[in-house]
């Protein structure tokens, strides 16, 4: 049987990516807003209450005035789930970069990308994006834009543990990384954790974990319990909103796992700030 091929114009992808860049940078996710509101009700220290108040007001101002939530509008990380029956007419890669270029300009977002990590000349249009493409069955094209700021990205870490380190080793590393992140990562944080795979797969899992809805739990109950236990331990650190002290150091811990090698136990921790921006669309 002949499979139908669906054609998508590259220009459509550019338009969608541009819109998602603006939306992600100006509109705080409803899940995060709800978590911040809940945290606000649970804090007693004046500096913690005030900081959460500032963050909620900031989100309102950003949305109302169409201003970026944060001046660090990040490096644009773009996740594409490309249906195997889709054919893109034109270059999908070029279309995504063009979408980032247009979206960052239209949204008055900051150009934060330098062309070479050592010569550090700004590219002037926030390109290139970091693009991850996954082939999936079907005829749809899913796009997620996740602008990633480097206050939190710089506090992220990866370690290749030994299998004998086990679950305790994983938890210890997550806790250590969250503690070291402290006030620099703009708490309350979202903690994305990857466990398993290879080195690069593990890092990608941690980043994908940041895309999960805050308040959701892992499908596997044993991992859901690990998420809850880690969240409680991280909040007991007392770092608090903005790092000024308090009960809310993290809003969520999200773990993603993947099969791994008999000799390894990779763990990656990708720290997300209190805005952890991402927006998605389907073509």
């Amino acid at each position: 049987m002949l499979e139908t091929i669906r054609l998508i114009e590259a220009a459509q992808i550019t338009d969608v990516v541009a819109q998602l860049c603006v939306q992600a940078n100006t509109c705080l996710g409803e899940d995060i807003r709800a978590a911040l509101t809940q945290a606000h009700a649970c804090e007693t220290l004046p500096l913690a209450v005030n900081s959460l108040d500032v963050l909620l007001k900031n989100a309102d101002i950003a949305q109302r005035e169409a201003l970026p939530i944060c001046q660090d509008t990040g490096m644009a990380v773009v996740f594409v789930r490309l249906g195997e029956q889709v054919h893109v007419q034109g270059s999908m890669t070029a279309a995504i970069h063009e979408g980032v270029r247009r979206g960052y300009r239209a949204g008055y977002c900051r150009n934060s990308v330098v062309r070479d990590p050592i010569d550090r000349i700004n590219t002037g249009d926030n390109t290139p994006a970091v693009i991850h493409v996954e082939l999936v069955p079907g005829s749809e094209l899913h796009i997620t834009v996740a602008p990633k700021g480097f206050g939190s990205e710089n506090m992220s870490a990866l370690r290749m543990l030994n299998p004998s380190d086990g679950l305790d080793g994983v938890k210890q590393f997550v806790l250590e990384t969250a503690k070291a992140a402290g006030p620099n990562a703009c708490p309350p944080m979202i903690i994305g954790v990857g466990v398993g795979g290879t080195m690069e797969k593990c890092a990608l899992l941690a980043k994908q974990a940041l895309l999960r809805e805050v308040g959701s739990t892992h499908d596997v109950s044993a991992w859901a319990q690990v998420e809850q236990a880690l969240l409680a331990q991280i909040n007991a650190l007392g770092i608090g909103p903005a790092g000024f002290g308090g009960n809310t150091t993290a809003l969520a811990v999200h773990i993603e796992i993947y099969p791994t090698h008999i000799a390894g136990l990779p763990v990656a921790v990708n720290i997300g700030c209190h805005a952890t921006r991402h927006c998605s669309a389907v073509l």
Partner: protein
Amino acid sequence: MHITSPIAAQDIQRLRVGDSVLLSGIIYTARDAAHQRLTDLLAAGEPLPFDLRGQAIYYAGPCPAPPGRAIGSIGPTTSTRMDSYTPALLQAGLRVMIGKGARNSAVIDAIREHGAVYLAAVGGAGALLSQCVSHAEPVAFADLGTEAIVRLTICNMPLVVAVDCMGRQLYH
């Protein structure tokens, strides 16, 4: 507590770690690349593009200003990246720093030595903080784009004293 920048030395001495303040007046943006250039100029014995004595630096790189606004979103960046440059700038007269996150012990010692203060803003509140800025005037290093030095006129910027002139710290 309302304070105005440049802050008089005796007013800096009254600030205590953990105090919430509303800062108005004049401050200058400078982050990584501008700090490199300022300290290069100091090392070469050349004049700085503005008189640093008694002044305040805000570790920030703003978004572009939308039409009708003085500036785009402008929250604090992580201060520790400026630590290696900071003692030289304090030596040259800098008295107030605004950023987010802890400072290293060399900076805290220099803050104590020079009677300076480090103020923290809430990280990630760039939209709200942009509303405190009424005027922005380029001062130097325009080629650095968002990392250029800009002179800001601000009103009631909400900040917390994170290291006071005695070297006491808010972050642990």
